[in-house]
C-alpha cells in the first residue's frame, strides 16, 4: 500500500500502464520534461523516453485526431488535454470520429484510447480553466466518461480505462488533486467502469455527485444530519457514461428523496439525466421532487465570484431539507 493523493495515484497508474504494455504512449502539451502542468506525468519521460511520453505541438485537434490514427494502427494512446475547456478544438474529432469509428466500420476498426483532462473550479484558476463541461461529452454515444473522486478510484478507473476496448474520457477534478491522501494498493488493479459507489449509507434522502462535488456532498450530508437529524445516503457516480442506473434506482427506492449535485450550470446539465433516470425507474418511491443543486446558468465566473457560484455544503443541506419538507400536493 502507498499513501497517495489523487494525482499521485494517476501518475502511478500511468507508470504501470507504460511498464506493462509497449503499445501504450502518452502524448500532450508539456507532458514531457515539464511533467504536465499539474505534474501528472512527472518523471515519466525520463523513465520511458521521448518515444513513449511525447510533447506535441500546441494542437488539440491534432492530439486527438492523431490518437485515432495511433489507435487504429496498433498503439494505445493516452492523450492529455491540459484543461478540459481546451478540448474544444478537438471536439469535432471526438464527436465525429473517436465516438463513431467502431460503429461506422461495423467493428472492423475501433479507437481504444484514453483522454485525460483536469477540470472544474475552486482553485482560483484563470478564465476558462475552471469550466465543468462534462455533459457535452456524456451526451455523445460511443464515448465513455469517467470521473474519479478518490485516489483509489483514480488509479483503478484509469487502469480500467486504458484496458477498455472503447475510448474513455477521464476527467480529473483538479480541486481535489492534492486535497487528501489515501492508502492505495501497489501494482495493478482495476475499478470497473460504469459502477457507482455508495460513499455513505443513509435512509432519508440520496445525494448524487461525482468528482470534486463528492466531498461537498458529504459535508452537506453532515450538516443536514447535525442540524436536522436527517440520514443522508451519498452516491459517487464515478462514471457518467455508462451510467449506473441500477444504483440510482436502488438508492431512491430506499430513501424516496434525492438531490443531484454538480458544478456545471443547471440548464440541460447532467443532473437532468439523473432526474430522468429516477423518473424512469423509481417514481413510485418518490416523496418529493428531485432537487438540483448546481452552478447557475451563467458562464463560470472569474475567481472573485467563484465562491458564490460553486455549490457548497450549505446549498447541499438546503436542497436536502427542501426535499424533506416537501408536502405531496403542496403545488396543486
Amino acid at each position, binding site marked *: 500500500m502507498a499513501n497517495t493523493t489523487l494525482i499521485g495515484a494517476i501518475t502511478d497508474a500511468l507508470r504501470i500502464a507504460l511498464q506493462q504494455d509497449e503499445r501504450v504512449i502518452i502524448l500532450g502539451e508539456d507532458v*514531457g520534461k515539464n511533467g504536465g502542468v499539474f505534474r501528472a506525468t512527472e518523471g515519466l519521460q525520463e523513465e520511458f523516453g521521448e518515444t513513449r511520453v511525447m510533447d506535441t505541438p500546441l494542437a488539440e485537434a491534432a492530439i486527438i485526431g492523431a490518437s485515432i490514427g495511433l489507435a487504429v494502427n496498433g498503439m494505445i494512446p493516452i492523450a492529455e488535454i491540459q484543461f478540459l475547456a481546451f478540448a474544444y478544438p478537438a471536439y469535432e474529432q471526438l464527436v465525429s470520429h473517436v465516438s463513431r469509428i467502431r460503429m461506422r466500420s461495423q467493428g472492423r476498426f475501433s479507437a481504444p484510447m484514453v483522454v485525460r483532462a483536469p477540470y472544474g473550479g475552486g482553485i482560483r484558476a484563470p478564465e476558462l480553466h475552471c469550466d465543468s463541461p462534462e455533459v457535452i461529452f456524456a451526451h455523445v454515444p460511443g464515448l465513455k466518461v469517467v470521473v474519479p473522486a478518490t485516489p483509489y478510484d483514480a488509479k483503478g478507473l484509469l487502469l480500467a480505462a486504458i484496458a477498455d476496448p472503447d475510448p474513455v474520457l477521464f476527467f480529473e477534478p483538479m480541486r481535489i488533486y492534492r486535497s487528501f491522501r489515501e492508502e492505495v494498493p501497489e501494482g495493478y488493479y482495476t475499478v470497473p467502469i460504469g459502477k457507482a459507489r455508495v460513499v455513505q449509507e443513509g435512509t432519508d434522502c440520496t445525494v448524487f455527485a461525482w468528482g470534486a462535488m463528492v466531498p461537498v456532498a458529504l459535508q452537506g450530508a453532515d450538516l443536514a444530519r447535525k442540524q436536522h437529524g436527517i440520514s443522508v445516503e451519498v452516491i459517487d457516480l464515478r462514471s457518467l457514461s455508462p451510467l449506473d442506473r441500477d444504483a440510482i434506482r436502488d438508492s431512491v427506492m430506499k430513501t424516496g428523496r434525492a438531490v443531484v449535485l454538480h458544478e456545471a450550470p443547471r440548464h440541460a446539465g447532467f443532473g437532468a439525466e439523473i432526474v430522468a433516470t429516477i423518473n424512469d425507474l423509481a417514481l413510485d418511491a418518490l416523496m418529493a421532487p428531485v432537487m438540483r443543486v448546481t452552478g447557475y446558468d*451563467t*458562464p463560470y*465566473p*472569474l475567481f472573485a465570484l467563484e465562491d*458564490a457560484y460553486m455549490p457548497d455544503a450549505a446549498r447541499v443541506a438546503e436542497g436536502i431539507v427542501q426535499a424533506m419538507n416537501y408536502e405531496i400536493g403542496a403545488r396543486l
Partner: protein
Amino acid sequence: MSVDSIRVSQKEPQVSTDMLQRMYELMWMMRQLDRRAVALQRQGRLGTYAPLEGQEAAQIGSALALRVQDFVFPSYREHAVAYVHGMPLKRILLYWNGRYDGAMPPEGVNLFPVSVPIATQIPHAAGAALAAKLRGLDQIAVTYFGDGATSEGDFHEAMNFAAVMELPLVFFCQNNGYAISLPSRKQTKVQRIAEKATAYGMEGVTVDGNDVIAVYLAMREAVAKAASGGGPTLIEAVTYRMGSHTTADDASRYRDASEVEMWKARDPILRAENALRERGAFSEEWVTQVRKHAEEIVTEAILDMQSEPPVTLDQLFDHVYRDMPKELAIQKQEALSRQAKGESVRG
C-alpha cells in the same frame, strides 16, 4: 530565410528622439508594473498572472505604431499593448484579480478582451478587418499571439482567410522562445515563423523583437500597407520570455539559467537606453524623472485596483444576455438571498 535576415533598426535615426524617449518610458513603466504584479501574486493579493518581462519592446514598439481606431485582438500576455492602446492599468490588474470589469475597455477603445484559449482571437481579427473593408473604414485589425499559437488550426484558417480576402490586418507573433515548456524549435520545423506566411501568399517579416525601433518601423510599414489596401502581413518579433510562463509555472524545470543569462544581455530596455545614449538623450536627470513618474503611475494603479469596491453578483448575472431570461432572474434572486444569509451568519 535565415536568422541574418532579421530586421534590426537602421543606423540613421528613423524615429524622433522624443518618440524613443517615450518608448523607453513606457517600457520601464510596464516592467515595473509587471514585477509588482508578480510580487502581488506571491503575496496572495493577485490571481495567477502571465508576466511579460523581456517582451516590452515587441509589445510597445508595435502598439505605438497603431492608430486609435485600429482594432486589437490580444492573447493574455499583452498588458503593454493594452495599456498603450488605451486600457487603464487598473483594469488590466482587475482582470488578473478575477474580475470581469477588468476585461471591459473604456468606451471607444478598440480592444477585445484577453483570449485565454490559444489562437482563438486570430480569426476574430480577420472578421474585424473584413468589417473595416466592407464598411470602407480607415481602420485595420491587429492580432497578437505566441509561437505556440501557430500550431493551432485557428491560426492557419485565419491566415488563409485574410490572405484570400486581402484584409487590412496585421498578424503579430511574439516568438518568445517557448510555449510553456516547449521550445520553439520543437513547436515548428521552420527556422522562422515568418516563413509560414509564404504558404498563404502573404508577406512575412521577421524582426528583432527586443529592438523597439525595429519593431516600431516594421509595424508602421505593415499598418500603412494594410490601411492602403495592400493586404495582410505576418510579423514575427523574435524575443524572449524572461520569467516563467505564469506565476503558476517554474521555468527552471525546463530551461537553463545560461540561456536566460544570454537573453539578459539583449534586454530591450538596456538597448533602448544605449540608443538614447548614442543620441545624447539619456541624462541622469531625465531618467530619474522618468522612473519616478513611472513609479507613481504604477503605484497609483495598484492602489486603485485595491480600493475598488468588492465585486457584486451583478457581474455574474447581468450581462449573460441583454434581457435577462426569467429563469436566470430567479437564480440571481436565490444567489442574492444566499449571500445575504451567509453574511448574516458571519456578521
